[in-house]
């Protein structure tokens, strides 16, 4: 095998690894955003994602995975600040509802009813958000 061929193979492997890594990072980083965009999942006032209707096992598994990671993050912050997990989760929900629910995407406030964000109208702020 010539030196040039070896170089080309090495370069090819490097490019593939880079592309794969980027694609993986993209999918991983946008898990919550993709779920919201799918319409099967919405953002809730309790700080977790919820199922809007019926969804495939795959969507449910992805949502559960995100929620488990959220709970872990809430738990860490709660112990650092002497707050409860529910308080941290509810506080996070205030920001998520205001910044992460896109037009046409679903949200559920304390009344338990799923609503769809209408165009650029803001999502109503729950009472506990102050």
């Amino acid at each position, binding site marked *: 095998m010539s030196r040039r061929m070896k170089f080309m193979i090495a370069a090819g492997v490097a490019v593939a690894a880079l592309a794969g890594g980027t694609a993986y990072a993209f999918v991983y980083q946008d898990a919550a955003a993709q779920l919201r965009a799918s319409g099967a999942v919405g953002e809730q006032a309790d700080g977790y994602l919820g199922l809007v209707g019926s969804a495939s096992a795959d969507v449910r598994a992805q949502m559960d995975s995100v929620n488990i990671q959220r709970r872990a*993050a809430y738990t860490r912050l709660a112990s*650092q600040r002497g707050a409860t997990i529910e308080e941290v989760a509810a506080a996070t929900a205030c920001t*998520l509802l205001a910044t992460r629910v896109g037009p046409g995407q679903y949200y559920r406030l304390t009344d338990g009813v799923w609503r769809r964000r209408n165009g650029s109208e803001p999502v109503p702020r729950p009472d506990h958000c102050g």
Partner: protein
Amino acid sequence: MRCLGRILVLGCTPALLGGCVQVSAPERPIEINLNINIRQEVVVSLREDVRELIQQNPGVF
């Protein structure tokens, strides 16, 4: 406390014998209001932490 007193008085006025003992109905909304006040304070105090939490966990939020 003033509020609590007022509700207890209101609760007792129309009550017949033993009405003052069973105050479970007026107690409830007081508890809920207190909880909401506490939560609001905590939520406001956590605002900056929450912003960092969201930024540091891409894909989760």
